[in-house]
């Protein structure tokens, strides 16, 4: 090593040499690394020449001869190529950074691994965490990132039932789908109606389930209650039974003419004094369908909150309440100043996920009444939320894939924007430690 130290190694020069990957590493006397980096570089060039350039070209044109060029496949191949390029760029930056850093080590006279064995050992020691997370990344990239990328691209095309490849070509249309959603009469009306119901639904249903959950937890937390375990088990049942079963059962029970609510429950309630209700149009009147859906979601969703809040309540020390009592705080004041703030600070992130979850709660809407009753244009029913509208746009008899993709993007931006904002505010998911 002594002889190398005399020839000065300049970090800047090493970084500059790594413009061709590997060269900086050779300069740093790490031939194995250099060979590997150079090989990756050649592999990328070979990939670009044999596949990449064609794929990118296909992505730009989306094919030119109908029946021969399959626009969708060109789109997918192009997206894959974009991912490959992003990965290569990542590698390229690491390569330059590595050259710079190792050269710096030489400069300050620190130990640098030059032997093959030492580099491999170092790779194992420091590469171990990456090795363990590779499967997670692989699955996420192909099940989340790649589909999102493809959706992003499709939102800017005219892919719909008039343009089904390979018989027809798909073309880029820029922001036309987005413009249509916001300006074209039918789409705009539907979009506004669906969006406003989605917001109302999310707020009402989630707030209902959170309120019932918190209230139940507090009521059941009182010390004098007998048979606490029995109640505890009963209150967990709505969570334990798979949701699709309960939603479908409720859907049957809320049937206007033969359902149990109208034939059994309401007559029973009418036995009580001062109560007189007729059979209600649960499935045929949008208003009552909305009420029913929100109530059922309250039923389904509260146990999760109840379990969470019970855990939090158990963690609040009793002394805190005792002290407040001695200071003369009323039960309500104790709740307002001790219980409620503790719940809110500890459970806020989970409450947020409940809101975003209901924003995309397809099962509840679709399995209860298929988004109906009736239609409000552009494939949407009167209780459809954005996600079930997307589903209908994609699966209907005249699919509007590109509009669906555009709506998807709009939803994602809304959801991510709001959650990021709130996560920042509540400082949930702190990155520290």
């Amino acid at each position, binding site marked *: 090593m002594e002889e190398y130290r005399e020839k000065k190694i300049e970090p800047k020069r090493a970084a500059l040499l790594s413009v061709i990957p590997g060269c900086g590493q050779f300069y740093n006397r790490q031939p194995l690394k250099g060979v590997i980096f150079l090989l990756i570089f050649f592999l990328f060039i070979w990939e670009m020449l044999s596949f990449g350039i064609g794929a990118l070209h296909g992505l730009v044109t989306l094919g030119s001869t109908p029946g021969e060029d399959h626009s969708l496949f060109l789109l997918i191949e192009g997206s894959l190529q974009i991912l490959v390029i992003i990965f290569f760029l990542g590698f390229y930056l690491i390569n330059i950074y590595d050259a710079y850093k190792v050269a710096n080590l030489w400069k300050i006279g620190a130990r640098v691994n030059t032997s093959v064995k030492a580099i491999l050992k170092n790779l194992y020691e420091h590469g171990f965490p990456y090795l363990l997370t590779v499967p997670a990344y692989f699955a996420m990239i192909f099940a989340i990132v790649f589909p999102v990328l493809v959706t992003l691209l499709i939102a800017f095309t005219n892919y719909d039932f008039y343009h089904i490849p390979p018989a027809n070509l798909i073309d880029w249309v820029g922001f036309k789908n987005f413009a249509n959603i916001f300006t074209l009469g039918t789409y705009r009306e539907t979009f506004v109606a669906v969006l406003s119901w989605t917001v109302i639904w999310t707020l009402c249903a989630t707030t209902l389930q959170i309120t019932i959950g918190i209230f139940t937890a507090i009521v059941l937390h009182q010390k004098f209650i007998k048979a606490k375990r029995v109640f505890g088990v009963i209150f967990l049942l709505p969570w334990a039974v798979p949701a699709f079963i309960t939603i479908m059962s409720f859907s049957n029970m809320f049937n206007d003419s033969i359902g149990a609510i109208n034939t059994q429950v309401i007559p029973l309630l009418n036995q009580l004094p001062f109560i007189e209700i007729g059979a209600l149009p649960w499935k045929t009147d949008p208003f009552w369908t909305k009420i029913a859906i929100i109530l059922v979601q309250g039923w389904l969703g509260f146990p999760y909150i109840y379990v969470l809040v019970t855990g939090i309540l158990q963690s609040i020390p009793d002394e805190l309440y005792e002290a407040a009592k001695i200071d003369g705080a009323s039960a309500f004041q104790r709740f307002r100043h001790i219980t409620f703030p503790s719940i809110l600070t500890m459970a806020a992130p989970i409450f947020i996920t409940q809101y975003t979850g209901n924003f995309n709660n*397809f099962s509840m809407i679709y399995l209860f009444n298929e988004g109906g009753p009736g239609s409000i244009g552009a494939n949407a029913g009167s209780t459809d939320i954005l996600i079930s509208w997307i589903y209908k746009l994609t699966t209907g008899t005249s699919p509007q894939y590109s509009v669906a993709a555009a709506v998807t993007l709009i939803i994602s931006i809304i959801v991510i924007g709001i959650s990021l904002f709130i996560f920042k505010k509540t400082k949930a998911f702190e990155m520290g430690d």
Partner: protein
Amino acid sequence: MSAKSEFHYKLRRFANRFFTYFYLILLSVIIIYPLLITASSAFKAGNLTAFSLDVSADWTLNNFKRLFTETLFGEWYVNTLILALFCMVVQVSVVTLAGYTYSRYRFVGRKQSLKFFVIVQMVPTTAALTAFFVMALLLNALDSMWFLAFLYIGGGIPMNTWLMKGYFDTIPIDLDESAKLDGAGHFRIFWQIVLPLVKPMIAVQALWAFMGPFGEYMLAKFLLRRPENYTVALGLQTFISNPFEQKVALFAAGAILIAVPICILFFMLQKYFITGLTGGGTKG
């Protein structure tokens, strides 16, 4: 304390107890009624069109027999079981490894990739239907369970990795350090020291991953086409979507066969949920 205020106190205490029990019992009835009405319909003879609670009806096991002879329920059940077990094994392994790494190792890009997990977790992936459709076309994977499994697993990873990391964080790192001093390698520390301590969380994760395919409807409906490839959620829906087909009793029977085993698993692991929720979700 004067006699009057004592009376007041007792009255208030009584009122509180009365309303507490009234609320708890009312809520219990509201929860049990729909479940009971569905469950009891499974044992009713005759062709039902709607669930109803009727104790005087004839009781029979015939619906269960019909379920396995007249419908494809057996195949749906096997499909769903395979799917659920596969998702469970793969997802839990991947999530455990990733959660362990983020909790125990400090490496370049750690913070950035944790942020990436949080943001990716918010993307409503199920909405990317068009993309899944196109991918399935290209891979020739329409009507294929493996593609569906892959989507379930990928979609579940970000959030569950977070929860898993949070749970690993609660286990003191001194344990690893002392094992390292004793000469244990990466794998031994993970496998023999830390892993046994997170068994509760692994159990919860496994249950969630297992329950997912039983309950998921949208992607399954979208990707699976032939009835014999259906999962139970899709299959049972065909019984109840058309009230004139009068298969409601079969739906109820099928629902029992699904809900009972899942409920048993659920209540067995129930005590870990609180730790799972508050330990992982809120600490970060």
